[in-house]
């Protein structure tokens, strides 16, 4: 029976990326396909890339070598330390703000009305356009403006998904809770929050991707540090092999963090992965 599986019905909802549970568990066969696809792309790149453009399309083997060069001279570790500080700081802020505003606006009409137009407007505007404003607001000092940029990029998927998760709570379960004389506090812990959980986690997955973009953008615009700076500076001197190293680090980071959230979902929402 699939009566109460949560997170599947996303009708009328703006929440995005809520997955059905069928695809959640990866089987060994899935990994063969996943790794095989990467191998094919790298193989084609290695063989045919340099024949198209020797300067820009440096083969993966060159990038691999550049990776160790950048580790040997310490540049990569420094940049990663800097960037991840911004990334995790920004994601933490986005999570705190997104969850609080998402829950509040999902629950109280007043909060919803107060923030909905702003959220819609800010979410529609390319976040990049707001980065100079952030730079000015924080006087371009320290990590704060870059953390704020990451937070700006990442906050909306969390906020909107949390809000929709709280709003889409199963009315029938609310009635069951009332029928058993629930208290307001228990209503949250028994019904509303667990039912919003898949939405929130889907929001976090999207936020990770946007946060990584925000991190690089902030480093392009504000202060020239971290992985973003590595990208720009090596691009300017046509060391495309080295330029690709931070790009690949960011991509790997995305894969690892999304995988972590998926793992986390299995831990804190185990009912979702148990299909009949």
């Amino acid at each position, binding site marked *: 029976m699939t009566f*109460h599986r949560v997170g599947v019905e996303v009708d009328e909802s703006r929440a995005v990326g809520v997955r059905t549970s069928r695809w959640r568990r990866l089987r060994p066969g899935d990994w063969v396909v996943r790794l095989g696809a990467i191998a094919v792309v790298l193989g084609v790149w290695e063989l045919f890339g340099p024949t198209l453009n020797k300067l820009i399309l440096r083969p993966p083997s060159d990038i691999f070598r550049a990776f160790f060069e950048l580790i040997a001279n310490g540049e990569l570790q420094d940049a990663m330390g800097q960037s991840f500080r911004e990334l995790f700081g920004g994601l933490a802020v986005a999570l705190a703000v997104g969850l609080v505003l998402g829950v509040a606006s999902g629950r109280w009409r007043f909060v919803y009305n107060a923030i909905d137009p702003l959220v819609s407007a800010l979410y529609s505007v390319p976040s990049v356009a707001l980065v100079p404003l952030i730079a000015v607001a924080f006087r371009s000092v320290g990590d704060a403006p870059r953390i704020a940029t990451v937070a700006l990029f990442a906050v909306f998927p969390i906020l909107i998904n949390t809000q929709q998760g709280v709003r889409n709570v199963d009315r029938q379960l609310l009635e*069951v809770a009332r029928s*058993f*004389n629930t*208290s307001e506090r*228990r209503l949250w812990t028994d019904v509303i929050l667990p039912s919003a959980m898949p939405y929130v986690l889907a929001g976090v997955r999207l936020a990770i991707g946007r946060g990584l973009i925000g991190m690089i953008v902030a480093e392009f615009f504000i202060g020239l540090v971290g992985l973003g700076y590595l990208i720009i500076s090596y691009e300017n001197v046509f060391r495309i092999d080295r330029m690709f190293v931070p790009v690949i680090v960011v991509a790997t980071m995305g894969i690892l963090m999304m995988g972590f959230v998926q793992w986390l979902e299995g831990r804190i929402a185990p*009912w979702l992965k148990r299909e009949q």
Partner: protein
Amino acid sequence: MATPIRISVEHVTKRFASGAVTVFEALDLAVRDGETLCIVGPSGCGKTTLLRCMHGLAAIDDGRIVIDGTEVRAPSRKVAMVFQHFGLMPWKRVRENVAYGLELAGLPKATVQERVAHYIEMVGLRGFETSYPNQLSGGMQQRAGLARALAVEPDILLMDEPFGSLDALTREVLQDELLRIYQLAPRTMVFITHSIEEAIAMGDRILVLSARPARVRELFQVDIPRPRTVESVIAHPRFIPLRDHCWRLLRERAA
């Protein structure tokens, strides 16, 4: 001689859509102590709404509903409901779902555990305590729903088409289970159904409602002795006359 009245619905009116739709008007009925009152009626006649009103889940527009001398305004712990949609929390295991009402009632942990085990056993779910609802069949989910309601040991059970979404075979098995459980501990029960056969099997009395706005078409005794099983009820000589009578009442209105 007179059996005490547990639930009394007095001149109750319920409207929907800001008064545009009248679900029922000046409805009167009484549920006696220890009896199972089955309510049947055409779909959409407001059976479920009536039950929700009895539980205090929906407000009424006029009249009053009294349970044991107290007017119903909000759900009471003396009353428990079994839902057509089961209403299990997907994130709770069977054990936690059954414990739900007990925890909300603030009972000590040991009592909760003891009662949960007892009622899980009673509904035949032993071995599934740690399953999540979506790992169970519909019939088993409703067993859990039933255990959750029984576990709070309510004076009154409200059954909202509890077997309505189950397949015919599972439904019959659960009807027998409920008859058996009733035999163990008879308690006052209001049982909504759209199945005439089910009403006859489960009910001591049957209340037939008309189409909206719902009125009491007829209220009659099911003169088939307990203990019952679905099989024994169907085989009883009174079964077919009662069923035909019910059918006639429902069809007259539908035509």
